[in-house]
């Protein structure tokens, strides 16, 4: 998967991080902070590899 952007999204009630707004393979999507989600897994692998930085909300 090709990730071209990633930014945290805050919950509008709690103002805490609730998901990641990312563009993956050209598609913008809201990715939950769920270890079993394949998009979240790829994002975190890219972050761990130093290939991606998730922007603040």
């Amino acid at each position: 998967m090709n990730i071209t952007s990633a930014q945290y999204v805050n919950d509008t009630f709690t103002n805490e991080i609730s998901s990641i707004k990312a563009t993956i393979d050209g598609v913008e999507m809201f990715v939950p902070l769920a270890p079993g989600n394949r998009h979240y897994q790829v994002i975190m692998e890219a972050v761990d590899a130093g290939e991606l930085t998730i922007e603040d909300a």
Partner: protein
Amino acid sequence: MPYTPITSLPTAPDRTQPSTFSTRADALVAALSTFVTETNAAGTYIDGVGTEVDADATAAATSAAEAAASATAAASEASAWVSGASYAVGDVVWSSVDYGTYRAKTTHSGETTDPSSDTTNWALVVANDLAAFGITASAAELNTLDGFAGSTDNLNATQYLSGRNLIINGSGRINQRSYTSGTATSGANGYTLDRWRVVTSGQNLTFTGTDAGRTMTAPASGVEQEIEGANIVGGTYTISFTGTATCTVDGVTKTSGDTVTLTANTNSTVRFTSGTFTDVQLEPGNVATPFEMRSIGEELALCQRYYLSGTIYGWSYAGGAVAVRASLERFGITMRVTPSIAFSAVNYENCSNIFVDGSPQLRGFGVKVDASAIGTITVNAAYTADAEL
């Protein structure tokens, strides 16, 4: 002897009628002698009838005993069949060839064919073995059927239960993404027809057919389906499919009908490369059974555990230029994991910037937009929820 009725007695004398009293008294006394005689005759008659009843009962009991004896003789004491002898309809004999018991269907004589081979004149009553009734299975085979524990050579009835195929969308009938045959994928493991992903970015899946069934063609690097480990109990499974593609299960090449050992609760991957494939089935046991054709609704529901799509029709009232909840979407099923949500074809009225309110959930998500100003806002959009492996 017929019964003789007793003669009625004369009119009895009456003391209130002195003029006739003597005459009637004399007549009544004179009649008593005849009355005694006729009464005794009646007793004799009744005694005779009783004797006849006793005799009839004795005769009936004798007949019953004789009938029972005849039945016993017919069933278990049949005489040996004699070649050339005369027999009447109903006669019972036993055969010295197969030791079965036979009853004559015809009156005949001079026949030299044993009853076991003469179905024209004899009917089998009691057989010496099941084969005589046309049952040719061995005892071992009968036990196999009884226990539903077939070998590779026998029917294994348990494998014909529905829900045995671990592969979802094995004939490519479900296409929720509206994937167009031959469209290059934009990333590795890009999904095409439901549950089938192209391994290498830029390659594609081609297919022919309809929602009733499709034949798929895999590229050089392959198309694969990853099976959720939660559905695998472990043990021996059989892979089967139709087509020319090379098949691997967890990296090991398999031909249709081969077995594979799967580990319980561990994901497994079936991949096809460089050829056609359809009717893919991975089922418990060591026998490949016919492809399980699920209903289209059932197949779709299985796919939606991993991916689904829908449409949002949101409406709300904004108190100003703030973020407002426009809609709450609920899925018809529970997805495998919390899905990623993507929007497309969005139309706004007095608002912009559609986004998921909080985190997506296993069974739905909330939708918010940024209102432009105080007043009514509407937003329409298509969405997808992706919980694929």
